[in-house]
């Protein structure tokens, strides 16, 4: 289908243009703030031991925060959608033939590209800061690749679903609280084994925990598995949960997005702008 190919090509071009925009000029500071701050934290944890595991906190934390940054794809999508519904970008896409398809492909490319940049900022200096990560194995990178791929699809389609449900950037702000809550209990900052059982179950329902686990399984030495639940990397379960979220997202996201796009009209954009002005005024 040549027309689907056009939307794909236009979407990719769009994604790369917006990726470039988000990493140039004044945007750059905001983009680098979190990865660099995280890197600093890892730097200070690089020599502190963790219990009797024999590993430093820095080594344990670095793969986990990679997982966390992949999970940020959810927040990125929610922010994009709520902001661009309000400023009319989405409606512009709707007024263009195959524009909605191109728009979402563009968003996936921009969000995925941003995340890859974050991961590079964390991983490249991180490998120099902390010792003991297993990066010489082909298997490490293969595991990293499939967890990353499933994770990008799962978290961003979840973000697209949530983003189509909130109607304003304000709503997106509220939505970021439960998402940060999920990050907090996902074993990235605090070992999940130390949490009460019911919290552990909640954490294991969502992609964030599995992204951290998957990244640890890729980059940590084999004996680090002792710290995990059931002393196992649980690759099968990781693929199962992330795959289920990805599949669910791929089925549900286009449906809710189409519904959201259908409801967009010029007067609804204007009405939201008026509301915004009233709030400011």
């Amino acid at each position, binding site marked *: 289908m*040549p027309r689907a190919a056009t939307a794909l090509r236009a979407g990719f*071009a*769009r994604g790369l*243009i917006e990726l470039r*925009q988000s990493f140039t000029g004044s945007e750059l500071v905001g983009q680098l703030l979190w990865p660099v701050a995280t890197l600093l934290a890892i730097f200070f944890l690089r020599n502190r031991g963790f219990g009797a595991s024999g590993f430093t906190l820095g080594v344990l934390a670095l793969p986990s925060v990679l997982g966390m940054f992949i999970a940020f794809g959810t927040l990125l999508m929610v922010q994009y959608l709520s902001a*661009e519904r309000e*400023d009319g970008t989405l409606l*512009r896409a709707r007024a263009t*033939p195959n524009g909605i398809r191109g728009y979402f492909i563009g968003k996936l490319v921009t969000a995925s590209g941003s995340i890859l940049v974050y991961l590079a900022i964390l991983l490249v200096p991180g490998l120099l800061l902390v010792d003991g990560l297993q990066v010489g194995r082909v298997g490490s990178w293969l595991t990293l690749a499939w967890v990353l791929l499933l994770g990008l699809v799962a978290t961003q389609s979840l973000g697209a679903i949530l983003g189509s449900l909130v109607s304003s950037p304000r709503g997106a702000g509220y939505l970021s609280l439960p998402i940060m809550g999920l990050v907090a209990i996902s074993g990235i900052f605090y070992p999940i084994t130390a949490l009460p059982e019911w919290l552990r179950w909640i954490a294991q329902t969502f992609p964030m925990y599995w992204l951290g686990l998957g990244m640890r399984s890729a980059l940590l030495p084999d004996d680090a598995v002792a710290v995990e639940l059931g002393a196992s990397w649980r690759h099968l379960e990781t693929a199962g949960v992330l795959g289920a979220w990805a599949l669910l997202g791929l089925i549900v996201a286009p449906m809710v997005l189409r519904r959201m796009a259908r409801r967009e*009209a010029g007067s609804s954009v204007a009405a939201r702008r008026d509301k915004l002005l009233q709030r400011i005024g």
Partner: protein
Amino acid sequence: MTTSADVVIDVDGLRMRYGASDVLHGVTFQARQGEVLALLGPNGAGKTTTIEILEGFRGRSAGRVKVLDADPAHGDEHWRARLGIVLQSWRDHPKWRVRELLAHLGSYYADYATEHVQRPWDADELVAMVGLTEHADKQIRTLSGGQRRRLDVAVGIVGRPELLFMDEPTAGFDPQARRDFHDLLLRLADQGETTILFTTHDLHEAEKLAGRILILNAGRIIANGTAEELARQIAGNDEVRWTHDGQRFTQSTADATRFVFDLFRRYGEAIADLEVRRASLEDTYLALVRDAEAGQGRAAAGDLQAVA
């Protein structure tokens, strides 16, 4: 007689109801290929609702609507590619550059080029046409209101549409920006390929730009014709003044030429100080807007009472 092939927009008995209140009560009109139509009316008349239904952005409660031979509620991507849309307020793509956005949005139309219609419009050519060449590499958020609006028009026509919708294209313009925009629209209309429907609440703008004016008031089309036809149709009578034997007379008449002819035939040179004041569309239109706003004022007063 026009053949149905010429009819680009065909609206019959269009109704729209929000909750308990009707916004449109049976709107009926047609537009033929190459026409420039103004949908004129005071704020709240239903102009935006009408145009959004035609654009396929909004459902309708009842009535038959055909735009480019399709029901806008079920228009496909191919149908969408033949339309151009300029909405009331765009603030989108603030970080994009002018030429970059036009080239990008244009790329979606390439599949819909035909033997007769080259799609899309070349971005550089289009930038020059709307007078933004100096700003082609600027970020859109740095444009002035008038420049931004000309970009909106450029985006609206980047796919060389057969039919262009514009909702209040000059709202908030200073006089210079308004004149520039009018020149742009007239040039576009001169090419004769694009049918244009725009909304405005400015009578002068409608008279200057449109071949035909539809006046929409409180959800009904109350007049439909050229500016001259409307002046006769709704403004009614011309006013003739004269003196005869030192006495002043004023007479209102539908046919001033005939009346003056009879006057001279009857009194000859005894008639002096003859004045004919043509029916003014503006007077009638302003009266109509005043009535509509007084109606809104009453509604608002009612609301206040309800609150109190």
